[in-house]
């Protein structure tokens, strides 16, 4: 789970990394006294999407009046800004990129640094890969001081700054390690005019597999872009919201993704991506309920299950139809273990089961386009 900036910074503070003095406000609250944070200040929308600066969701205010007006503007911008982090605007000399992640191929942790901070690392990797510093860290041994020192020297730092940044590298790694994180990123890491090293931003992604250890980060609506995505996540059903008119109710991540591709190839538009395979294969009703929340024209069900038996899925689908009475047509392509029984079950319920994924996709696209 990706944490909000203010939460990432709380973790950084816990591990000794300095962050700018700040205060958090929940919509609609705002107090321009800023709890002691001085002016000029920066109002930072606490949303999980990247590119906040470009989207105009970060504002600089010189006066309380300006801050008030920006706060109102951000809360009402229609982009789901429900919380603001307001920080003092420091005097910055330079910006560094710093992160810790995992390297699946090398089977190590990986510290990534770059003297040009403030830019997205993907952009840096594309435009100037030679500037990126990579240091692999043995996950059993942990980061050693010499590695942090090496990185700091490669960043071109000297004296106290070299020591200060090395220390932050050690601290960031310690936080990454302690939480079993997927990613701990400071971008930018500020070097202030008085040579302090301060985390200007924070991204922290905790591995979902260990999230239960941290009840303070329980799953809330605020972590999701839509109600449906949140509800599905609570139920443990993988779901993504799109704005088309074909709802996918498929089994298996790879197969669902493939059906998504085939829909796009045929000129269709997906309303939602939903998987009800694996541990969810008996939950057709809940899956269909989620699909029906969309303004869709057809539900396309494609499965090829082995442990997730075709007959069990077919029964679940028929039960769901009887209870939910969907007002849109349903196209099925259900294969795998006991598929012969599945066909009989679907036919008895008045459906016309298909066997070929591409044919099912074409049919769904035709229905959505009013051609079938």
């Amino acid at each position, binding site marked *: 789970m990706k944490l909000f900036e203010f939460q990432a910074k709380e973790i950084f503070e816990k591990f000794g990394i300095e962050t700018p003095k700040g205060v958090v406000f929940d919509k609609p609250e705002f107090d321009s006294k800023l709890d002691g944070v001085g002016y000029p200040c920066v109002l930072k929308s606490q949303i999980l999407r990247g590119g906040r600066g470009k989207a105009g969701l970060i504002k600089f205010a010189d006066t309380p009046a300006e801050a008030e007006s920006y706060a109102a503007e951000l809360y009402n911008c229609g982009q789901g800004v429900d919380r603001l982090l307001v920080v003092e605007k420091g005097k910055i000399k330079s910006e560094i990129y710093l992160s810790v992640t995992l390297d699946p191929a090398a*089977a190590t942790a990986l510290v990534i640094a770059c003297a040009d901070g403030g830019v997205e690392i993907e952009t840096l990797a594309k435009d100037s890969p030679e500037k990126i510093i990579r240091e692999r860290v043995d996950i*059993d041994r942990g980061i050693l001081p010499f590695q942090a020192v090496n990185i700091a020297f490669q960043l071109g730092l000297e004296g106290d700054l070299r020591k200060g940044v090395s220390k932050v590298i050690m601290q960031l790694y310690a936080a990454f390690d302690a939480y079993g994180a997927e990613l701990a990123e400071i971008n930018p890491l500020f070097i202030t005019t008085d040579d302090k090293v301060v985390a200007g931003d924070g991204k922290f992604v905790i591995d979902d597999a260990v999230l239960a250890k941290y009840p303070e980060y329980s799953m809330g609506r605020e972590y999701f872009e839509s109600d449906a995505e949140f509800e599905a996540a609570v139920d443990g059903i993988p779901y993504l919201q799109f704005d088309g008119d074909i709802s996918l109710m498929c089994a298996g*991540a*790879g*197969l669902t993704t493939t059906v998504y591709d085939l829909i796009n190839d045929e000129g269709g538009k997906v309303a939602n991506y939903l998987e009800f*395979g694996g541990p969810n294969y008996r939950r057709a009703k809940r899956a269909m309920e989620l699909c029906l929340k969309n303004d869709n024209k057809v539900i396309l069900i494609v499965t090829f299950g082995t442990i997730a038996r075709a007959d069990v899925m077919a029964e679940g689908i028929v039960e769901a139809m009887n209870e939910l009475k969907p007002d849109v047509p349903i196209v099925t392509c259900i294969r*795998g273990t006991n598929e012969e029984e599945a066909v009989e079950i679907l036919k008895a319920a008045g459906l016309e089961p298909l066997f070929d994924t591409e044919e099912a996709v074409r049919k769904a696209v035709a229905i959505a386009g009013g051609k079938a």
Partner: protein
Amino acid sequence: MSIYIEKDTKVLIQGITGKEGSYWTEHMIGLGTQVTGGVTPGKEGQTVHGAPVYNTVRRAVAEVEAEASMLFVPPRFTKDAVFEALDAGIKKIVTVAEGIPLHEAIQIRSAALSEGAVVIGGNTSGVISPGQAMMGFFPYWIERVYKPGRIGVMTRSGSLTNEVTAMVVEAGFGVSTLIGVGGDSVPSTRFAEMLPDYQNDPETDAVVVIGELGGTMEDEVAEAIADGSFTKPVVVFMGGRTAPEGKKMGHAGAIVSGGSGSVADKTKLLESVGARVAKRPRLVGELLKEVLGD
């Protein structure tokens, strides 16, 4: 022939007395797998489908022959179980658990690499050599998917593997060994690391790779082709060709951002070294016919 597992491979089952372990042990034996024993602490003396149960892997290997171990163990105990098998000298380990903590997955892979072991998984159905033996859960009796033959299959997926492999079989081929490396972002063994075995298997004519957006595993296959270490035909299908940037679509391992890891980039790279990339599952069978001159 086959790779990784064949009819003579002696297999231990860790977690054999559990519901899932017991159920799939029966089917593994049903296909012909040599299950020599099982492990569940505190259950020594029992037998499961004829296989004797031991308290620990160390005890098991002292009593019966075992060169491979199949784990039916929940994700949070997987690291311990893998290390227990490694400690007992076992070099082939398959773990099906989904959701092994990432830092532990790194430790598992790191240990396997340094000890020369091949751990497959997690988040996979396992490994099967149709008509011979399997470690994992495959309904091997479904002939239109698990037909013995001369095509190696490596995959990150479950249902999609059935979809694609059914096309391989429909085109008149069968499977030598199917290896599910798993859908997690830190698979213990990567596609390219299995290629030398397929290269050396005289009964594998070509390899089908079922990949996905995100990560670099397909790129590593391209490297193995480019440097000449793998010379048999390769046909690749990848899901997520039209996935929007930044959305976590598909398996945990599949996220594309800023252009790297996209199916378009992978396709370009694979085709530049002579691999064939199928846009749709159905075309995998067609491309196999082309490359094998059928």
